[in-house]
């Protein structure tokens, strides 16, 4: 019996990753209006939280050093975009490849599991970073969020560590989509729930204690805490970054292994060309 992709751990070729990113960029660029609508959606999202913040002006909750609820939420919005891209980007791309019918043609090529997994996820992650940067800029320029205490080295460090940690979950979710096909509902639910218990849009202190306990072990919790500490307090992000790196070091090989199993399973079932 044949054994496809028997050795999943190999260093991806940069050229292949770049080719996948470029292809995704060109496809995305062909839907020009989507770019504009996406940015518009982000601005509306910021406005909603801005007016919520105006409605409930004072809060006694711990905001991780953020000077206002809007400052707290705007970071949550921006970072959630990156974290969603890291955790759900691969699953989304796999689903698109299934629907367009290109997944079989792609997996018939001499491409490794890690090239496939990280190459398919990279554009979404990079695009998410750019969108997050844009919303942070808007928050600073037009909504009065101050970044005067920000430690940008710390911010970028925690952001990259968050991306790597969340990518491990993303690769596992991508494997689920390979096998289950309509797994995007699951991926959406997982990423949303992780944001809910990790303080994306409100302080975790308002959650019941059992939800706080769940949130305290989520990589997203370290991501939000570390990023807010870096941007508003200018320090105190080292522990969060370390936790995220440990999570990535353990999680990424597990994720690649799961993705390999997903590919093997879809080959055995004969469903790689199905959607």
């Amino acid at each position: 019996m044949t054994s496809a992709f028997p050795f999943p751990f190999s260093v991806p070729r940069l050229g292949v990753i770049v080719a996948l990113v470029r292809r995704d960029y060109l496809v995305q660029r062909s839907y020009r209006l989507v770019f504009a609508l996406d940015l518009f959606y982000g601005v509306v999202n910021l406005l909603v939280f801005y007016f919520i913040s105006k409605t409930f002006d004072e809060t006694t909750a711990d905001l991780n050093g953020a000077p206002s609820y809007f400052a707290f939420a705007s970071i949550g919005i921006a970072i959630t975009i990156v974290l969603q891209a890291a955790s759900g980007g691969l699953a989304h791309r796999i689903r698109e490849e299934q629907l367009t019918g290109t997944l079989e043609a792609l997996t018939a090529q001499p491409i490794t599991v890690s090239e496939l997994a990280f190459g398919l996820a990279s554009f979404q992650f990079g695009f998410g970073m750019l969108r997050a940067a844009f919303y942070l800029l808007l928050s600073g320029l037009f909504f009065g969020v101050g970044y005067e205490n920000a430690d940008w080295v710390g911010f970028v460090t925690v952001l990259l560590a968050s991306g790597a940690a969340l990518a491990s979950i993303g690769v596992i979710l991508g494997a689920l989509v390979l096998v289950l096909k309509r797994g995007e509902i699951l991926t959406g639910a997982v990423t949303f729930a992780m944001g809910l218990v990790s303080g994306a849009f409100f302080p975790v202190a308002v959650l019941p204690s059992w939800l706080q306990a769940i949130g305290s072990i989520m990589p997203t919790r370290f991501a939000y805490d570390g990023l807010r500490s870096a941007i508003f307090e200018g320090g105190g992000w080292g522990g969060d970054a370390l936790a995220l790196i440990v999570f990535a070091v353990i999680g990424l090989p597990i994720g690649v292994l799961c993705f390999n199993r997903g590919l093997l399973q879809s080959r055995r079932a004969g469903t790689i060309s199905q959607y």
Partner: protein
Amino acid sequence: MGSNGNLLSIEGLSRRFGAKEVVRSLDLSVAPGQRVALWGPNGSGKSTVLRCVAGTLTPSAGSVHVGGHLAGELAARRLVGASLAQERSFYLRLSGRTNLLFFARIRYDDRREGSRAVDGLIEELEIADIAATRVDRCSTGMVQQLGIARALLGDPSVLLLDEPTRSLDADARGRLWGALGRRPHAAALIATHLDEDLNLCDERVSFPV
């Protein structure tokens, strides 16, 4: 190459989908330069065999080796150029050339070498117009020619062609067979139900087996 001198060795290949056994105990060896036609009606298992060789489908029983490597392994996929179901195998919003360049980037470590290979194939198969057109504006026959160009990328030792002439006009058919003739060392496995294709192959395996 396998120890017996064959590029492709299929031993006892069976593939089952649920209760239905589509391919049963197929044995086949293909030597370099040999063209073998998988001949039979629709649904008789020809494409299933090609997919097992390409590595996108795992046999239920038996084994497939390409150049001595298990089908599906990276080393085996490097040796195989496949034109399977073409209708839904390209990125529709990109041009033919951009699609080919993308797949070339996976096949070739050097970007310029891949680019030269793409341009060479576009010239050889005379598909400059197709290459310049966005795939969603191409006809079935045009996409089929792109599929053949993609299969030839990387100068593969084993070519898998699934009904390669089905939607082609006479000129395009001539160019396809001409391209195969210029690759005398490549083994070709061609699924077809057309007499014309059969006459240009060295051997026939009748389906269902």
